[in-house]
């Protein structure tokens, strides 16, 4: 590449657009409201915005469609998406690494294992508290396992490898549970569920997941100051009065709680936690605290948009939302890996 005088050199992290600071959150909220209204209008039966408005007040058939089918789906997409975006941004802040996200700890897979054990051992039906609790326990175990195996302050490669191992183990254990399940239809059901979807969810599912998600969101937002201090490393953050050990525990526990609850009701949806902070970061200029709220909002917007998309594509059975996020997220992840090859030690000269 030749650079000539007067060429514009892109500054990788410089904020762009005029949307910065105060204007950003309202802009994202407006985007989400528009997506949410679209989400309520679109589906097997097309509803006009007026129908949706009437439906929200429980009038007629539209009332049933909006309140019992589309609203739960929308609320889950919003809260799970926000949780994924927020937890991705939080883990990136904690580890000071832009490639961190819940999936590198194997958290979604382990949460799925927890949920599958409860569902298919007949311990509980599909809408009971045992489900989110088991999923949260799974996510927590995997995250702790990765942290213990990789060790404190480990290089991301060590974490990725440990996470990969934990995720594979959880996947294998899930297959085992399905094989051992007395229910012959388990395989098909569970495979579809694992791909992640908001189809046919009820307000019960919303009530099961949202308390956990809200709690962990509060904890993670409270950790923002600590993530910002960690910009200067563990020692300096501690010298500034930040309890780094507590920050680590809070982040892991809250992430596991939110991700587990999300997986329990919607299956494993990947890559939103990676993509959302990356879209948010250019808007706020790299600050690990200021990136939290926009990441959550962008995560919510991505999942609502993806959930609209799966209803628009003509197919015999609905496409899974986890498939859509993977189709968008994996190329982006690969792009990030390519653009950071030197960092990963892929360059022979480093």
């Amino acid at each position, binding site marked *: 590449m030749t650079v000539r005088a007067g060429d514009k050199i892109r500054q990788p*992290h410089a904020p762009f657009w005029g949307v910065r600071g105060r204007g950003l959150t309202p802009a994202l909220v407006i985007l989400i409201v528009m997506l949410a209204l679209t989400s309520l209008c679109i589906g097997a039966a097309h509803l006009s915005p007026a129908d949706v408005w009437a439906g929200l007040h429980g009038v007629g058939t539209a009332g049933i469609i909006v309140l019992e089918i589309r609203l739960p789906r929308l609320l889950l997409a919003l809260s799970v998406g926000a949780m994924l975006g927020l937890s991705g941004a939080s883990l990136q802040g904690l580890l000071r690494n832009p490639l961190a996200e819940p999936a590198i700890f194997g958290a979604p897979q382990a949460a799925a294992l927890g949920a599958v054990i409860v569902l298919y051992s007949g311990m509980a039906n599909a809408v009971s508290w045992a489900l989110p609790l088991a999923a949260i326990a799974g996510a927590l175990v995997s995250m702790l396992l990765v942290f213990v195996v990789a060790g404190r302050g480990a290089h991301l490669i060590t974490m990725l490898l440990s996470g990969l191992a934990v995720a594979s183990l959880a996947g294998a254990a899930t297959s085992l549970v399905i094989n051992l399940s007395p229910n012959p239809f388990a395989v098909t059901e569970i495979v579809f569920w694992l791909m992640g979807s908001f189809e046919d969810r009820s307000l019960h599912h919303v009530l099961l997941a949202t308390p956990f998600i809200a709690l962990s969101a509060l904890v993670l937002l409270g950790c923002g100051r600590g993530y*910002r201090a960690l*910009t*200067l490393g563990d*020692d300096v953050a501690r010298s500034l009065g930040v309890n780094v050990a507590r920050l680590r525990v809070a982040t892991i526990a809250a992430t596991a709680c939110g991700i587990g609850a999300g997986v329990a009701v919607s299956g494993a949806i990947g890559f939103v936690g990676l993509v959302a902070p990356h879209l948010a970061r250019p808007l706020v200029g790299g600050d690990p605290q200021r990136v939290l709220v926009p990441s959550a909002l962008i995560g919510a917007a991505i999942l609502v948009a993806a959930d609209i998309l799966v209803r628009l594509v003509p197919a015999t059975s609905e496409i899974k939302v986890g498939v859509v996020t993977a189709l968008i997220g994996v190329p982006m992840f690969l792009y990030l890996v390519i653009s950071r090859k030197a960092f990963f030690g892929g360059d022979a000269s480093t």
Partner: protein
Amino acid sequence: MTAPLLEASNVQVRLGGRTVVQDASLTLRAGEIVALLGPNGAGKTTLLRATAGLLPLQSGTIRMGGGARPQGQRCAYLEQGGRIHWPLSVRDIVALGRLPFGSSLQRLSTADQAAINTAMEDCDLAHIADQSTDCLSGGETARVLMARALAVEAPLLLADEPVASLDPAHQIATMQVLARQARRGGGVLVVLHDLALALRFADRVILLQHGAIIADDAPEAIIASKVLDRVFGLEFQSSGSGRDLLLAAKIDGPA
């Protein structure tokens, strides 16, 4: 005489099963710059980190002045070769020094603003205040981190090799900033590798070898005692005034 800002008695620190600092005692009073010198691996950084409360002590005590204020307000710590992991603006990084006062970037008091501006002026950063820290040179980064530590306005400043990546002019400028900090009534404990710089600016020199303090005296006395020759295995000569030091031709290598 006022109570010392820092008083370490018989400090022993073990890292990875090895005793890195043993039986170290030192005091630091207001208005003093004390240079911590010694060969590589002598335990300078470990002693400094222990002093900052970042390492558990095997035995001994560390007492810090400053009354009932939280530790973060009493002592600023500047890490050796510190890195900035996210591309914040220079001003935002310096503002992190106000974190112990409960200040966030969104709510900075006038006192916070004043501390941040003074620190940036002291470190010659005012002209790049809004630049992103990922576009800075190594020397600029070092000055940003120094300004961050100054912005705490803590009575005690613990600095680990703050001039390591600076050109000679900025090395002297940084040492002058430390001197100003001391004149304002602060205490500065600074790890240095540049002996000439240390002897010129420090009020007192503490010499570490194999984890133990082997000398704690005024620069003139340190030079006169020839203790540096023994510790570094080199022959030094003072040139003219009692504080300037020259490296002589005879070089034995590290002791």
